[in-house]
């Protein structure tokens, strides 16, 4: 079964997501920070990354996403962004590479989590891969 890495500094959200994903038998690993997340990518070689936008800093998530995309070994891994309530207004997820505000993610889900929505998006991204 596909391996999913959740990078989020909120342990409660991670646990909730773990329950949802494990109900469909996905293998779930998690990281509490951007740095830990980047390490785990190398270690665990996940099939998909779920990434919180706001961790240590406002847009740590974007930084991590860019780093994944700039590494030729991992850039193929689909990224599902997790955004806080009302934070997606005005964000353009499809900007070109190189742009300061480039958000190299494949899709996003807004908190609070809706289990069915999360499962659908995860499934879609894994299939597209």
């Amino acid at each position: 079964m596909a391996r999913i890495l959740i990078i989020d500094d909120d342990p409660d959200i991670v646990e909730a997501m773990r329950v949802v994903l494990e109900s469909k038998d996905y293998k779930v690993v998690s990281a509490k920070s951007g740095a830990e997340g980047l390490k785990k990518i190398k270690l665990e070689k996940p099939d998909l990354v779920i990434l919180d936008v706001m961790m240590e800093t406002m847009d740590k998530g974007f930084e991590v996403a860019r780093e994944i995309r700039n590494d030729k070994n991992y850039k193929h891994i689909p990224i599902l962004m997790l955004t806080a309530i009302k934070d997606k207004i005005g964000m353009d997820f499809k900007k070109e590479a190189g742009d300061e505000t480039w958000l190299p993610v494949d899709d996003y889900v807004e908190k609070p989590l809706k289990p069915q929505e999360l499962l659908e998006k995860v499934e879609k991204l894994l299939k597209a891969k």
Partner: protein
Amino acid sequence: MKYEGLLERINWLIRLRWIAVTGVILTVFVVQKIVRLSLPFFPLYLISILIGLYNLLFFLYVRHIRKKQLPDIETRTNVIANLQIALDLFALTSLIHFSGGIENPFIFYFIFHMIIASILLSRRASFLQATFAACFFILMVGLEYFNILDHYCLKGFVVNDLYMNKVYIFGTSFAFITTLYLAAYMASSISIRLKDREKSLKEANLLLEEKDRIKSEYVLRVTHDIKEHISAIQSCIEPVAEGMLGELNSGQKDLIRRAGERTSKLIFFIKALLDITRIKLSKDIEMKEFSLVKTAESAIILVDPKAKAKGISISRHINIGIGLIKGAQVYVEETIANLLANSVKYTPRGGKVEITIEDKDNLVLIQISDNGIGIPKNELPNIFNEFYRATNAKELERDGTGLGLSMAKQVVERHHGRIWVDSEEGKGSIFSIMLPKKQSLL
């Protein structure tokens, strides 16, 4: 900006001068044709025309400097304010010289100029203008007395040649000059007091705005903190409610459902509060060109499921010829969706909701109407206030943030538009929004 107020008053003076010129010409005409005094009418008409001409020049010049916004606009404004009054004093002196000099009772019209000077200028400058007026007057009386200038007697109006009567000249001059200074003093006292008052009101207003901003920042910070927690709570409830950790018995299911509903409501409220606080705190919102027609369509799509569930059809009368307009698309869409959702919410089953979009040259008019419960007349002035909910709305629907309409108002005002409502309790409501198509035209 200080000079803005002065420019405003200069424009007022220019308008006043048009009336004055008309008055002078009419008076001269009446004196010529009806009272039939013999006076040199040619120079009197000529001076009136000259006043009209320099008024026109001032009018054009003020418009010019307003448009150009030159860096030295403040100095220029001050100069024309002073120049205008000095010119007026000279023009009035000339008019009076050709119509009887010191014998002309209209000499007291100088008082008006003193009042105007005191309103427009500083106290020192208005005393300077009073001195100008006194000098012009003394010069005219003196030159006429020593026969250096011709005297045009108001025959038929005054008995003798008063302009040669020393006692009369001194008496009148004394009364006249003291009147000038007293008028300047009194008018500038009033004017200074008013300006001080205006200043302190402005300061108080700034202070209030600052306090309001601090309050908004506080609200934003608190809401941010709450939102993280509530988001985690809801995220944990949902998988349990959906039985992902095993089937729940009916009692468990019921309580979890209740908890989930309450957090959903809280999240909805937090979203609204975040929206309105953010827009209030943001200095600029990004404006781009977008299609109003498409935006309205997506707003309708958002609300349509709820409308259908209540058997309400949303009818549209949208002028599809309206091209792109400039604004913050996300906010405009949210506003239209909000108003539509309100209409659906407060209209009984099977009612009618209608959206109309019309082209009004540089503006667009968006109207959302329904035949719902309407708004009580005495509550109409309050409905755009934050957290306000009409009594009949609360009776019908316990839940509601009371923020939707104040958010709509914020959005519309940030677009330099206007929002208003026409409503009758029990019959329905029409919400109207007027937006400029291009923000730059303002």
